[in-house]
C-alpha cells in the first residue's frame, strides 16, 4: 500500500506542469456544474416564493359549500400530522356595503363588494401593502376594523376613518389596500375588496342558508411535504366538492408556466452536468493513455498488475477529486463576481450562493467520471504483456467481463447522480435519448468521414493528405473529438433554441399591450357613446368592441339523426359565445378554407379536431331561440394566450347577427397604473353606463408579470451562462488532445516539415472534424428542441435555422483555431526537446 501511494506521488511530481493543465480542465467542468446548479437552485427558490404569493399559501383548499361535519377536523388532523405545517381560514363572499348612517347623509347607496374575512397570520406568502405605507398587521382588523380597496372609497364617497355597514354590522375603515397577495386568479371580480377579521364575520349575519360563500383553508407546509399532502387531501375532499390546489398546480396558467421554467432549468442543469462530464472524461482519457508506457516499464521491472492498477487509479482519482475541489473554488469565485444588476429582478432580490447539494453533485460527478474513464482502460492493463506494450503493439480485443461490470457500475452511479434533482422525468428522458442517439450518430459519422475522405489521401497537397490520413490512423482521435464537439454543440445549441422559444412564449403573455380592463354587457345603443367616452378618457387607445351572442350547436346538417349523433359528443351541445365580423383578428390565422361571408361560419381548429367537422358541412345553431343554419367555410387557429381580441370557437361573417339582440365586450388597456385613477375611470364608466360591468385585471396581470419577469431573467442568465461555460469546456476538452500529437509533430519536424505545413495540417484535420461535429450537433439540437418543446415544455416549436447555420460555422472555426493554437508551443519548440522529453 505504501508503495502504491509513494509511486503515485512520485509519478505526479514528475509530470507536474502537464498536470496543472489537466486540473484546470477538470476544474472548469466541475466548476460549471457547481456554479450553474447553485444559481438554478437560487432562482428556483425565488420563483417558487413568487408563485406562492399568488395564492398566499403552499396549498389552498376552497369550497363554495358549507364544510361537511367532520371535514374541518379531518383537515386539522392531516395538517397537524405534518411537522411544521400551519393553517389559517379565510372566507370570501360578495355582499353589499353602504356607508353607515352616522356618516351623515350618504346613506342609501349600496355597492357590491367582495368581503374577505381572514385569521391572524394571513398571508403566508407575499405582503399585503397599504397605500400609506404602514405595514399590515392583523391588529388593524381587530374590534370591527376593515381595510378596503380605493375603488370603494370612490364609489361610496368615504374616507379612512368612516364607518361602513355590511349586513347587520358596522366596520371602521382603517386603511386602504394597495396590493393583496393571494387574490383569486379566477379574474372575475364583482366589486372591490373589503378585508375584515374572521371572528367578526358572524356578526354581519350574512352566513345563513343559501349564502354564496367561498370557504378557504390556507396551508403552509414544508416544501418536501407539499405534494403528498395535496394529493392526500385531494383524494379525501374531492367528493365533498372541495378544491385542493398547491402553488405548483398545473390547472392555473401560471402554474403551467412555472412548471415550464422549472423543466427548462432542470434540463439546463442536466446539460451542464453532461458537458462537465465530457470535459472530465476527455482529460482522464488522455491522462491514462500517456501512462501506458510507464505501465509497461513497471511491469518489466516486476510490478504486479494489481499494484500498477492501484497506482494509476489512485492518481486518476486524486486528479478528479483535486480538480473538482478547484472547480468548487472557481464556482465560488464566479458566483461572487456576478454583477449586482443580475441579482435584482424587478423588486425581488436573488441571493446567489453555493448550495450544498450542487457542490456535492459537482464533486461527485468530477470524481466518478474520472474514475470511470480511468478504470476501464486501466483494467485492460491486467491482460497486457510487458513486451507487447513496449513494442507498441495493440492487443487483440477480447470481451472482458470485469471491464464491463466496472463500467456499468460507475455508469449507473453517474446516471443516478446526473438525474438527481432533475425534477422532470420527461426532460431527463429526452436528454438521455438525445444523448444516446447522438452518440451513435456521431460514432457512425466518424466512420463515414474516414471512408468518405479516402480519395483525399491521394491529394497532391501534403497537409491535406496527412490530415486525412490522421483521421484513420491507429490511435486516431476522430471519434473522440466528434463526440466531444458534437455533443457539446448539440447541448449548447439545443439550450439556446429552447431559451429563445420559451422567452417568445412568455413575451406574448406579459406584453404591455395586454388589456387589463374588460368591459362586458355593453348594449348595442351604448357602442358609440362608449367609444366616445373611451376616446376621451384614454386618448390613443383604439377600443375594440366585440359583438357577442350565446348560441348552442343543435346539429350538423339538418337531419335529426345527426343531431342525436352529436348529443353523444357531449361538449358540442353546450352554449358557446359567438361573434361576427369581416376579417381575421391579429391573434388568428387561417388554417384552411376562407373567412366566412355573411351567414357562413368559421370554426376553430380544436372544434374541427374534436368533433370531426369539415369545410362545407352545414351546422345548425340555436341562437337565442331561433334556428340558424350556416355553412362552415374555413378553419382558424386562435392564439388563446393573446387576449387582445378575445378568442372565439365560432366566428360568423360580417353582419350575420346585426339584427339579433346581442351585446358587446371590450378589452381595454387603461393607460394608467395609478389605482385611484383607475378607480375613478371605473366609477365614471359605471355611472355613465350602469349596466356595464367592469372587470379590472391589472393587479392579477401585475402579479403574473412579476413572476414572468423572474422567469425570463432566470432563463436568460442561466442560458447565457451555459453557453459561455459550455464553450469553455469544449475549448479545454479539445485542447487536451494536443498531447497525443506532440510526439508525431516532433517527428514530422525532424523529417523536414515546416511549422506552417504543420499548422495547415492541423487546421484541415480539426476543421473537418469541427464542421462535421457542428453540423450533426445542430441537427441534433433541432431534434432536441422539437422533442422538448413538444413533450416537456408544451410550447410551439419554431426552429431558428439561420442560428443553427451560424453556430455550425462558429463551431468549426472555433475547433480549427483551438487545434492550432493549443499546439502552438509544440510547433514552435525544437523537435529534439520534444523527442527527449517523450
Amino acid at each position, binding site marked *: 500500500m505504501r508503495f502504491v501511494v509513494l509511486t503515485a506521488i512520485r509519478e505526479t511530481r514528475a509530470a507536474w506542469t502537464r498536470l496543472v493543465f489537466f486540473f484546470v480542465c477538470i476544474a472548469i467542468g466541475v466548476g460549471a456544474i457547481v456554479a450553474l446548479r447553485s444559481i438554478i437552485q437560487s432562482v428556483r427558490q425565488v420563483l417558487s416564493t413568487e408563485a406562492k404569493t399568488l395564492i398566499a399559501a403552499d396549498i389552498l383548499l376552497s369550497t*363554495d*359549500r358549507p364544510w361537511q361535519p367532520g371535514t374541518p377536523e379531518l383537515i386539522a388532523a392531516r395538517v397537524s400530522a405534518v411537522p411544521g405545517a400551519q393553517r389559517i381560514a379565510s372566507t370570501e*363572499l*360578495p*355582499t*353589499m356595503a*353602504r356607508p353607515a348612517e352616522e356618516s351623515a347623509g350618504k346613506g342609501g347607496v*349600496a355597492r*357590491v363588494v367582495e368581503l374577505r374575512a381572514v385569521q391572524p397570520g394571513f398571508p403566508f406568502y407575499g405582503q399585503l401593502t397599504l397605500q400609506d405605507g404602514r405595514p399590515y398587521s392583523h391588529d388593524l382588523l381587530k374590534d370591527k376594523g376593515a381595510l378596503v380597496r380605493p375603488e370603494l372609497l370612490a364609489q361610496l364617497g368615504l374616507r379612512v376613518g368612516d364607518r361602513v355597514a*355590511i*349586513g*347587520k354590522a358596522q366596520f371602521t375603515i382603517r386603511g386602504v389596500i394597495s396590493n393583496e397577495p393571494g387574490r383569486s386568479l379566477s379574474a372575475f371580480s*364583482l*366589486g372591490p375588496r373589503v378585508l375584515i377579521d374572521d371572528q367578526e364575520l358572524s356578526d*354581519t*349575519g*350574512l*352566513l*345563513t*342558508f*343559501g*349564502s*354564496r*360563500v367561498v370557504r378557504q383553508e390556507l396551508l403552509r407546509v414544508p416544501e418536501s411535504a407539499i405534494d403528498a399532502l395535496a394529493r392526500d387531501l385531494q383524494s379525501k375532499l374531492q367528493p365533498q*366538492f372541495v378544491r385542493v390546489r398547491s402553488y405548483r398546480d398545473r390547472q392555473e396558467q401560471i402554474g403551467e408556466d412555472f412548471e415550464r421554467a422549472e423543466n427548462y432549468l432542470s434540463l439546463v442543469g442536466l446539460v451542464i452536468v453532461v458537458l462537465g462530464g465530457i470535459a472530465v472524461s476527455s482529460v482522464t482519457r488522455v491522462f491514462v493513455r500517456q501512462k501506458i508506457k510507464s505501465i509497461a516499464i513497471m511491469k518489466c521491472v516486476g510490478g504486479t498488475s494489481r499494484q500498477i492498477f492501484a497506482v494509476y487509479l489512485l492518481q486518476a482519482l486524486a486528479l478528479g477529486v483535486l480538480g473538482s475541489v478547484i472547480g468548487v473554488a472557481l464556482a465560488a469565485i464566479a458566483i461572487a463576481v456576478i454583477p449586482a444588476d443580475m441579482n435584482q429582478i424587478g423588486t425581488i432580490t436573488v441571493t446567489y450562493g453555493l448550495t450544498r447539494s450542487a457542490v456535492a453533485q459537482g464533486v461527485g460527478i468530477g470524481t466518478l467520471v474520472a474514475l470511470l474513464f480511468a478504470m476501464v482502460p486501466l483494467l485492460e492493463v491486467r491482460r497486457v504483456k510487458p513486451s507487447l506494450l513496449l513494442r507498441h503493439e495493440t492487443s487483440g480485443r477480447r470481451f472482458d467481463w470485469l471491464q464491463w461490470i466496472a463500467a456499468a457500475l460507475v455508469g449507473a452511479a453517474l446516471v443516478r447522480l446526473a438525474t438527481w434533482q432533475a425534477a422532470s422525468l420527461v426532460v431527463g428522458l429526452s436528454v438521455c435519448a438525445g444523448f444516446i442517439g447522438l452518440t451513435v450518430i456521431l460514432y457512425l459519422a466518424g466512420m463515414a468521414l474516414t471512408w468518405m475522405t479516402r480519395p483525399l489521401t491521394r491529394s497532391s497537397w501534403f497537409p491535406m493528405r496527412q490530415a486525412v490520413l490522421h483521421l484513420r490512423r491507429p490511435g486516431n482521435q476522430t471519434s473522440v473529438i466528434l463526440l466531444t464537439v458534437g455533443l457539446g454543440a448539440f447541448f449548447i445549441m439545443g439550450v439556446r433554441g429552447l431559451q429563445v422559444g420559451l422567452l417568445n412564449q412568455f413575451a406574448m403573455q406579459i406584453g404591455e399591450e395586454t388589456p387589463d380592463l374588460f368591459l362586458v*354587457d355593453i*348594449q*348595442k345603443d351604448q357602442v358609440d357613446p362608449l367609444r366616445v367616452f373611451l376616446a376621451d378618457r384614454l386618448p390613443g387607445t383604439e377600443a375594440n368592441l366585440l359583438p357577442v351572442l*350565446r348560441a*348552442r350547436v*343543435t346539429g350538423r346538417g339538418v337531419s335529426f339523426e345527426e343531431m342525436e349523433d352529436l*348529443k353523444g359528443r357531449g361538449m358540442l*351541445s353546450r*352554449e358557446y359565445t359567438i361573434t361576427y365580423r369581416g376579417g381575421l383578428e391579429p391573434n388568428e390565422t387561417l388554417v384552411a378554407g376562407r373567412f366566412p361571408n355573411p351567414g357562413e361560419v368559421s370554426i376553430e381548429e380544436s372544434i374541427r379536431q374534436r368533433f370531426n367537422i369539415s369545410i362545407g358541412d352545414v351546422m345548425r345553431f340555436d341562437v*337565442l*331561440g*331561433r334556428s340558424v343554419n350556416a355553412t362552415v367555410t374555413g378553419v382558424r387557429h386562435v392564439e388563446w394566450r393573446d387576449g387582445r381580441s378575445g378568442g372565439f370557437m365560432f366566428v360568423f361573417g360580417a353582419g350575420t347577427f346585426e*339584427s*339579433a*339582440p*346581442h*351585446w358587446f365586450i371590450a378589452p381595454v388597456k387603461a393607460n394608467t397604473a395609478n389605482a385611484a385613477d383607475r378607480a375613478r375611470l371605473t366609477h365614471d364608466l359605471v355611472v355613465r353606463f*350602469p*349596466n356595464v*360591468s367592469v372587470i379590472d385585471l391589472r393587479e392579477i396581470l401585475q402579479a403574473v408579470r412579476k413572476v414572468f419577469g423572474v422567469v425570463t431573467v432566470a432563463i436568460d442568465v442561466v442560458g447565457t451562462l451555459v453557453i459561455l461555460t459550455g464553450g469553455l469546456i469544449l475549448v479545454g476538452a479539445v485542447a487536451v488532445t494536443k498531447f497525443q500529437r506532440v510526439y508525431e509533430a516532433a517527428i514530422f519536424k525532424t523529417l523536414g516539415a515546416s511549422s506552417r505545413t504543420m499548422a495547415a495540417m492541423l487546421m484541415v484535420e480539426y476543421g473537418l472534424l469541427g464542421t462535421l461535429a457542428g453540423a450533426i450537433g445542430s441537427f441534433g439540437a433541432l431534434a432536441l428542441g422539437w422533442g422538448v418543446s413538444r413533450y416537456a415544455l408544451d410550447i410551439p416549436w419554431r426552429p431558428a435555422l439561420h442560428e443553427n447555420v451560424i453556430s455550425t460555422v462558429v463551431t468549426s472555426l472555433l475547433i480549427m483555431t483551438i487545434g492550432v493554437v493549443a499546439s502552438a508551443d509544440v510547433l514552435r519548440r525544437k523537435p529534439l526537446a520534444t523527442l527527449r522529453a517523450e
Partner: protein
Amino acid sequence: MLGDSLTAGLGLPPNEAYPALLGVRLREEGYDWEVVNAGVSGDTSGDGRQRVGWALEGDVRILIVALGANDGLRGLPVGQMKENLQIIIDRARQRGIPVLLAGMEAPPNYGDQYTKEYREVFSDLARRNKVEFVPFLLEGVAGDPRLNQPDGLHPTGAGAAHIADHLWPTVEKMLKK
C-alpha cells in the same frame, strides 16, 4: 320563455331543461302548443330587455319571464332590474301577449336590505301590471343538494322537473283562458 341559464338548462341536455319538460307536459295534456326556449346563460334583466323584441317575433301566445337571477347574483341595483322587467312586460302587452312573471330570490349574503328590496320588485310588478305571478321560480329546489348541480346554482334534471311541476298550474290556467 324568456330567461337565463336556469331556463336554458345550463349543464343539462337540451331535452331536460324545464321548458322542454313543460313542452312534453303540454303534449301529454293534449295542447298543441310549442315551447320556445329563449333562455341565455348569464343574461340579466337588462340583456332580456334588449332581446325581448327578437324573442317575440313569430306567433307568440304566452310569454313567461324568468329573469333576474343574474342581477341578484351580481348584486346589481334593484331599481334598474325593476325598470328592465317593466319594459319587457310592456312590450308583450303592446302585442297583446299575456305574461307570466316568475320571481326570484337574491342570495342572503347580500344582506337583508338588498334581498328584501329585490323580492319586492317582483311582487310589486305583478301587482301593478296584474300579470300572472309565481313568486319564486326555484321554490322547493334552491338549496337542496339533491336537486342541484355541484355548483349549487343550477338545477339537475330532477330539479328541472320540480320547476316544471311548480309552474304547470299557472301555465294551465293561462292556456284555458
